[in-house]
């Protein structure tokens, strides 16, 4: 009998140990440090001291309320847009893709093959002041002669929507693909119109995909600062921009740490409210 046979109950823990240890030291412990730092006071020159300084949180909420609200707003709109844009396509691939399904899915994730920053810069080119999008909109009088898209909230939301779209489209596809076509046929046999069959059968059955896609899009979108930085102006800055500059430029660590926690809490609350609204229990199950 080998060692493993005699100690079978130990095997899973031996398998887990290295990875779990790594995640504990470099994910859980750092969150603890971040929490600790968020309650400190002082500055970089004279050092920080732990003083249960809850004021960091109140000041962050008071001074950067606009950026917090804007982050949730932009992320919310972008998530909704991504859902509306990609649902029909996910449906099309799932039900009409045939043997081309995998190839079409490859096209869906194609943007991910281009470096994130580079594809955002490409949007900067597309939306630039002399670009064809602005020119077309100007000739259609949607935009005034001096109107522009860069440095507006439209540009930032456009960028966020595009950058996180595959996160929405893939889970939608997976849930639609799993639907048994016979259920839809049954609904139609029982005299449901196509629309009715869609609303009562297909849509509810794709709900896990909608939930997973929404979370996978909303969470990174709310914390993003690249789109706001490259496509927006200062008045489009999101909370990510503030956290980034406080940490790396202003070295105001306690304030930045507090903001990071507020962002996380806001996202958790938004996710929780959403989960209650949708009424799904498989929240963690679908996202993983």
């Amino acid at each position, binding site marked *: 009998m080998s060692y493993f046979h005699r100690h079978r*109950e130990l095997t899973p823990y031996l*398998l887990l140990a290295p990875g779990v240890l790594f995640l504990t030291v470099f994910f859980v412990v750092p969150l603890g440090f*971040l929490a600790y730092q968020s309650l400190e006071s002082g500055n970089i020159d004279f050092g920080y001291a732990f003083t249960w300084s809850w004021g960091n949180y109140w000041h962050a909420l008071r001074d950067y309320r606009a950026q917090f609200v804007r982050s949730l707003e932009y992320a919310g709109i972008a998530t909704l847009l991504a859902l509306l844009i990609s649902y029909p396509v996910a449906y099309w691939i799932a039900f009409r893709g045939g043997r081309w399904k995998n190839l079409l899915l490859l096209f869906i994730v*194609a943007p991910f093959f281009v470096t994130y*920053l580079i594809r955002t810069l490409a949007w900067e080119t597309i939306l630039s002041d002399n670009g064809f999008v602005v020119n077309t909109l100007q000739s259609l009088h949607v935009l005034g002669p001096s109107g522009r898209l860069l440095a507006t909230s439209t540009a930032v939301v456009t960028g966020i929507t595009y950058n996180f779209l595959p996160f929405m489209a893939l889970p939608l596809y997976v849930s639609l693909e799993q639907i048994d076509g016979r259920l839809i046929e049954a609904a139609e046999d029982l005299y449901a119109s196509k629309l009715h069959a869609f609303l009562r059968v297909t849509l509810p059955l794709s709900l896990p995909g909608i939930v997973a896609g929404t979370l996978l899009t909303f969470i990174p979108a709310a914390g993003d600062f690249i789109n706001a930085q490259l496509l927006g102006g200062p008045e489009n800055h999101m909370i990510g921009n503030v956290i980034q500059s406080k940490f790396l430029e202003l070295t105001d660590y306690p304030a930045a740490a507090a903001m*990071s926690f507020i962002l996380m809490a806001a996202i958790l609350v938004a996710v929780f409210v959403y989960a209650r609204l949708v009424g799904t229990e498989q929240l963690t199950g679908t996202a993983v």
Partner: protein
Amino acid sequence: MSSIAVPARSRRNPLATTLGFVRRHLLTAYSILFFAYLLLPIAVVILFSFNQPIGKFNYTWQGFTWDNWRYWDGIPGIRSSIVLSLQIALIASIVATALGTLIALALVRYGFRGRGTTNILIFLPLSTPEIVLGASLLTLFLNLNVVFGFWTILIAHIMFCISFAVVTVKARLVGFDRHLEEAAMDLGANEWTTFRKVTLPLSAPAILAALLLCFAISIDDFVVTYFNSGNRVTFPLFVWGAARIGAPPQVNVIGTAIFLIALTVMLANVLVQMRRAKRAS
């Protein structure tokens, strides 16, 4: 009355099929538009890698040139940033996949106490915004007075890759026939031999998929790296720095090259799958 009702009824069917036809093609037309939208920025990246910009802004089309491709490393710092990105991505994806595969094996094969906690530990990094991941690691390293550089970047990348590796391997291991392992054990193989000769070869595609995914995520990462890089510059950080003063077309060249390599790898994978599916049917 019946003479009216009959043609009206017989007309209903063609009308319905015509509507169905239009509807079906409406969806197809929409999907084509969707893919055009999805691929538009990629086309812009590729196109502007051949641009001959006047001045330092590569925003408007000025003229065609091969020079950016010929002198792809003609910008100071670009080559070293690519080398660093490749080094980090290679090591991080191997380490993260190894650690992640072990966790996935434990989760799929064994019932044990602490399973739920482990699942949450894997799920949390995936549902935490990158900026919080980056910021929390930064505070850890700052408080421990760690010198930022290669090692801090590497640790950060392994950290955010592990969960992706676990999820990828786990998804493929679930449908795995355990009788094969039992058969090996019945034939006298011990657990290590069974693992080496049966489990590992059978889960090789899953491990390869995790490896590729981790590599891709690592080489593309900006946010977490930005917080933990010190003065080292990976390729995305180079792009960020360059974007502030106007990104040179060489950035598009590298972006195009990465895109083409990733596309080739994935396309080969899809074609193999399609051929296998065809043979099976």
